[in-house]
Every structure is written in C-alpha cells, then in structure tokens.
C-alpha cells in the first residue's frame, strides 16, 4: 500500500487537531486542577463546584477529537476505502481545515485554564457566587467553539 503526500497531509491535519487541542486542554485542566486541589484542602465542601470549574478547559480536547474523527471518516480511514491517492492540494486543503481548532484549541484551553484558576479563587472566597464565576471561563471557550464550527464546516464541505 502506498500513500500519496496529500493523504499524509490530511492525516497530519487530523492528528494535529487532537494533539494541539488535547495539549491545550491538558495544560488548562492541569492548571485549574492545582488551584482546585488547594481550595479543597481548605474547604472540602467546595469539591463539586471547583471540579466543574476545573473541567471547563477540558472541552477543547473533545473538540479536537471531534474534528479528527470527522476528518478521518472523510478520508475514509474509519472503514470504507481510504483515499490513499489523494492529491497534494486536497490533502493540504483538509490540513488547513483542521488548523482552526488545532491552534485556537491550544491557546484558548490554556487561557481558559488560567481563567478557571481565577474563578476557583472566587469560589474559595465567595462560594455563593459560583454562577458568575462559571461565566468567565465560558467566555474564553466561545472562540474555541467558533474555531470548531469553522473546522467542522470546512472539513465536511470539502469534496474529495
């Protein structure tokens, strides 16, 4: 079985969206987790709240996975005939379509993680302000959602 360069590029794009967005989420969730653990050591009752805040930057990883999955099924790697003879231009097109969620996922997850840390600080001081605290990280996520949307639309509208 031989692979065309185009197929390799498409697969690289698919891989990158899971890799970069996943890295970002791991980073963000990790940051928030450290802050959350600190709060729980003082006040174990806040566990559920800070856990939710910790999880918020985790979604970018899921979005990355989502785009990877759609891309893999697009290039036929998940059952069906794999388009191993794809032209380089098509491959690069798919690669480019994967970039929004890959890059924005990485950056937004990191910053969402930092915002989560700050929001965990709110919960530590004023547990009743949880509703507002949750909103700040959710604001950052908007841009990951926009990137996800563009990646999905681009990948699913490319015709091989």
């Amino acid at each position, binding site marked *: 079985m031989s692979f065309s360069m185009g197929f390799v590029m498409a697969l690289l794009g698919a891989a990158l969206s899971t890799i970069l967005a996943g890295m970002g989420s791991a980073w963000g969730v990790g940051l928030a987790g450290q802050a959350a653990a600190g709060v729980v050591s003082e006040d174990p009752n806040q566990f559920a709240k800070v856990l*939710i805040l910790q*999880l*918020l930057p*985790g*979604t970018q990883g*899921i*979005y990355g*996975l*989502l785009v990877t*999955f*759609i891309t893999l099924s697009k290039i036929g790697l*998940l059952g069906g005939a794999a388009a191993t003879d794809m032209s380089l231009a098509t491959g690069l097109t798919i690669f480019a379509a994967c970039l929004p969620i890959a890059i924005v996922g990485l950056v937004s997850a990191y910053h969402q993680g930092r915002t989560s840390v700050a929001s965990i600080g709110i919960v530590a001081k004023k547990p009743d*302000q*949880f*509703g*507002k605290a*949750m*909103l700040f990280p*959710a*604001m950052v*996520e*908007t841009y990951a*959602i*926009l990137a*996800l*949307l563009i990646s*999905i*639309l681009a990948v*699913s*509208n490319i015709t091989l």
Partner: protein
Amino acid sequence: MQKLSVCANKKNRKAILELLQSMGCMQITTEGIDDPDLKKMDTQAQRSRFEKSAQMFDQALELLDQYAPEKSGMSLFSGKEEVSREKLNEIQKHQQKYIAKVNRILSAQKDITEHKGTILKDENQIAYLQPWMNLDVSMNAKGTKHTQVLIGTLPGTWTDEQLYAAVSKDLGEAAAVDARVVSTQNDVTCAAVICLKKDAENVENALRSEGFAKPSQVVRGTPAQAVSKLQEDIELQKKEIEALEKQIASESGSREDFKIAADYYRTRAEKYRLLGTIPQSGNAFFLEGWVPKKDAPDIEKILTEQFGAAVSVEEPAEGEEQPTLLHNNKFSESVEGVLESYGLPKKGHVDPTFIMSFFYVIFFGMMFADGGYGLVMVIACGIVLLKFKDIEAGLRKMVKLFFWCGISTAVWGFLYGGFFGDLIDTVARTFFDYSGSEPVLKALWFEPLGNPMRLLIYCMLFGLIHLYFGLGIKGWEYLKDGDVVGFVSDILSWYLFLTGLVLILLPTELFGSIAGDSFDFSPVAKLGTLAKAITIIGLLLILVMQERQTKNWVLRILLGAYDIYGVTGWLSDILSYSRLLALGLASGVIANVVNMMASMFGKSVIGAILFIVIFLVGHTLNFAINILGAYVHTNRLQFVEFFGKFYEGGGEPFAPFKTENKYIHIKEEKAV
C-alpha cells in the same frame, strides 16, 4: 411585598417574635424607627450563650459522626428531619440533661487530644533514642570507682579506630582508654568512651576539641529499656483513647436529640439577635418589615386577634428599595436558581424567569441532544424527585430543572436521530448483520452532521428570536412606565432596523451560498423595497432619537451614529448561538466514536461483553462532560446574550426572620 408596622404590648414580645419566627414570612427591619425615647435591649449576653450552646451541640454531633458514623446512602438528597413541636418541647424541658451529655462527650474528646499529645511526645522520644539503641549502659552512667564514662555526640562520621586515636593522642602509649562508636547517622556519631578517672580531663578536652557534646536529653536506664517503656506507654494511651472513643460512640443514640437541641439553641440565638434590635418604650415595642402580599392579611389577623397589637399594612412608597421574592408557576420556578446565581431582579423590573425557562430548556436540549442521554436524565431526576420528597427547596428546583432539560434533550435527540449516538445502527450492523444503506433509527427532523449549514441557520434564527424576546421585555418595561417615546426610539427602532437588515441580507448571494440547497430565500427577495424602507426608518430613528437627552443636535446625531455601530454587537450575539450547533454535534459525534470503538471486537460473545464495557465507560464519560458543557453554555446564552439586552440584577433577596434550622424541620400541628 407590603410593609407591615406593628406596635404591641411589651409583655407579648417574645410570644410574637416566636410566632413570626415559626411562620418565617416577614423580613423585619427596624432601621426606619428612630425615636430617641425608644430604647433597645442589650441581648448580647443571652445571644452568645445560646450560640455557644448550639456550637457545643454541633461539635458533639461532629464527634459522633467521626466515631460512630451514621449509615446513610444518598446524603446529598436527604432533607431535614421532621420533628414535632411536642418533641421539641420535651427536649427543651430536659435541656440540662443533654447539656450534661454533651459536656461528657466534649471532655472525653479533650482527654483524647491529651492522650494523643502524650503519644506524640513518646514517639519523639523514641526517635531521639534510636541512635543510642546499641548502648548497653545507662545514658547518664558516670563510671565506676576508678573509671569515668563519657557519652555524647560528635559531628562527622567516625570509626572506632579514629575515635581511639583522637582520645588517646595525649595519653602516651598503651593508654587505658576504650572508645566505641554507638552509631553514626546523618553525619552525627554517637560515641561512648571509658577511661581512667585520672585521664578523664585529658580525654574530655580531646573530645571537646572535636566538637563533643553530651546528649541533650537523658533517660533513666539503658536506651533499649527506655524505649520499651515508652512503647508500653503508647499502648496504654491507645487503649485509653479507644475506651474514650467507645464512650463517645455509646452516646450515638442521642444523635437525633442533639440535632434538635442544636437547632433549638440556634433558633433562640436568632430570636435574641432580633430582640436586641427592636425599639421599645416602657410598655410597648415596635416592629416594621416586609411581608409577601398574600401573607399580610394572615399575619395582621393573628397579631391583632391573639395579641391585641396595632398593625398597619401599607404599599411600599414610590422608589422605595424592597426585597425581591420570585413567584412563578411550577414549571418556570425550576430555573429560579439559575436566575438567583446571576442576581435577582430589582423591584419594579420584570422577572424574566417565565420566558427564560422555555428558552433554557430548549437550548439545553439542543446542546445535549441525545435520546438516550435525555432518558437517563429524566429517569434519574424522576427517581430523586419521587423518592426524596423533603430535599431542600433550592436543590429540588435544580433537580426539576434537569428533569425538564432531560425531556428536551430526548426530544432533540430523536429529532436529530441520536440515541446514545448511533447505538441502534451500530448494534444492528455489528450483531444482527444489518447492511441496509438507510439508518435503522431515522432522524425525525434531519441529521445535523449531514447538513450542518442548515442547522446553523436555524440556530441563528432561534438566537434572533431569543434576543428579540429580551429586547421585548425591555420594551414592555418602557410601556409599563408610560414612556412611549422611549419605546419607539430605543426598542421599536432596533426591531425595524434589524428585521429590515435580515430581510435585505437573506436573499443575497452570501446567504444563498451558506444555506446551499436547504433554503430558498427567493420569496424574501420580493419584499426588497419594504425591507429597505423599514431598515431606513429604523436607522433614522436610532440616529435621531437614541440620544434624545443630549441637547446639542450635532453631538446627538454623532452619538446616534455611534449607537448604530451597536449592530456589530447584535451580529456577535447571534453568532454566539452557533454553539447550539457545535455542542450538539460534539455530544453526538463523540457518542458515535464510543460506539465505534465498542463494536471493534466484532460479533461474538467476548465482543458483546467488551461492547457493553466500553459502551458504559465511554458514554458515562461523554455524558458527564457534555452535560456540563450544555449547562454552562445554556447559562451563558441566558446571562450574556439574553440578559445583556434588558436585565440588571442587584435585587435584595427576601430574607424573612425564621427558624435557623440546620438539621430539623418542625412540623406544626395546626396551621397558623
């Protein structure tokens, strides 16, 4: 809300306060009454006494939980216990007995702490003695008639020979010295040296010059004996602690009584707190406060008939700050918690709970969108609602909200054709050799992944409707205040402008290519002239009227032009609703991935077992992360996009004077 003012005989004041407290429907404020002739009673002493008692009972309960844990399953949902008034009176009568019990528990705990301290001390001593364990004489051995023993530590690591050389260097040859290293550890050497008494000074000086120091603590007997004695002591202390713990645990039968007593003291402390703020004259006292309209006649009747008090009920004065109490129907009240977390509406503003509740449930369903997940939510929340009837009101509303959201999730799931992702198709293809090209479970509406653009347009349409409702609420507030000019220039202008813009944009090339074949906007194009007309009317209204309080006409037009720029805000708000599509796709596609992984092991018994395992783990994970996402982003759409159009929080919550019960709920025999 109505304002209630009470003047009553002083001798009834405790009875009246107790009554109001048990009814819990009046927020008492006394700041309004300031007459220099009225005095306030100092109740600080009683209050802190009761608070201390409540605290003691709380501590005792914590200890009971620690030493005799209560067996309880779903503690999150177990509400407060119901206690009859008689039982409360009974406990109140025997309060001395319970205080004695609590004192016994607390003093037992104090003893436990002391014993634990002793154990810690012993353990430190043992650790200190560890390096000396090989020494077979007492650590403070002086020597015999002719010999002297020197025991102590030296910095650095030494061997027997080095030590011997060091102590004997001033004694000449064949010195009568025996030098031994007991142990070396952490760069410290424990040493014992025996020499003749006459050489003692010499030897000691030699040792000192190497940094010799006598042990800081000396024990009786050899170190080994001392350690075994200490260990015995530790055992003894442990036994004592065990006995004391048993003693505390043996009181666990009184747990319920303690809870009642703790809450009894808490309630009394609260009563005395209020009592201290009440202005009173020689024979009368005065109260003022807010009462929900529906409760006002009841309170008035009881106070006048039972206590002969003078009561006046009045409507709040114009512009007076008053607390907010939400009042909604059974469905809409479930989102009250969400509203409260943002901030209650100020008095005179609209309570958006009713409109918000529908959008909340619909949007949540769109983002989670899976028949299976929805049913799981409905069943789980339904069980909680049926089984735990006495859970705390706020939590109950939350569970109810998720119940409704579950229904919506299931509905959207079937509209999109998702039931645990593509579970039914995967099972049919993997285990039942289904190979048709049509899916087994068809989407009732359409599959979003097959035509995301179509759904995106719908999402934006829903967003526009949501935002129009928000703007509409603001318009309603204008009309309620009779401000028709404000309504036309701030609300109607935007309706016209935006609607016109949408109608102009829809038939354009841009939208046509986005929508593809799913929509035919050509009929809209026929409205072209009308669309242009209403856009221009709206535009002009904004330009001229939005800044109507500005006197300078040039500035007014310039500021109006800047307000038109606000249309970009509308654009970003509407685009924000694309999360309805993105999150809905996310939960569906990840569910598909789980199913695909689960089906990889093919059609066999082992394959089926692995299928179930992967299915359970994967879907649990997907469920958890996506329910969180749906919750957070539904809140965001409400708080940022919807509330941004009209809402300002900052209302004071209604905080009635009531029983401050932590554990119990008092069942009243007769309705008051």
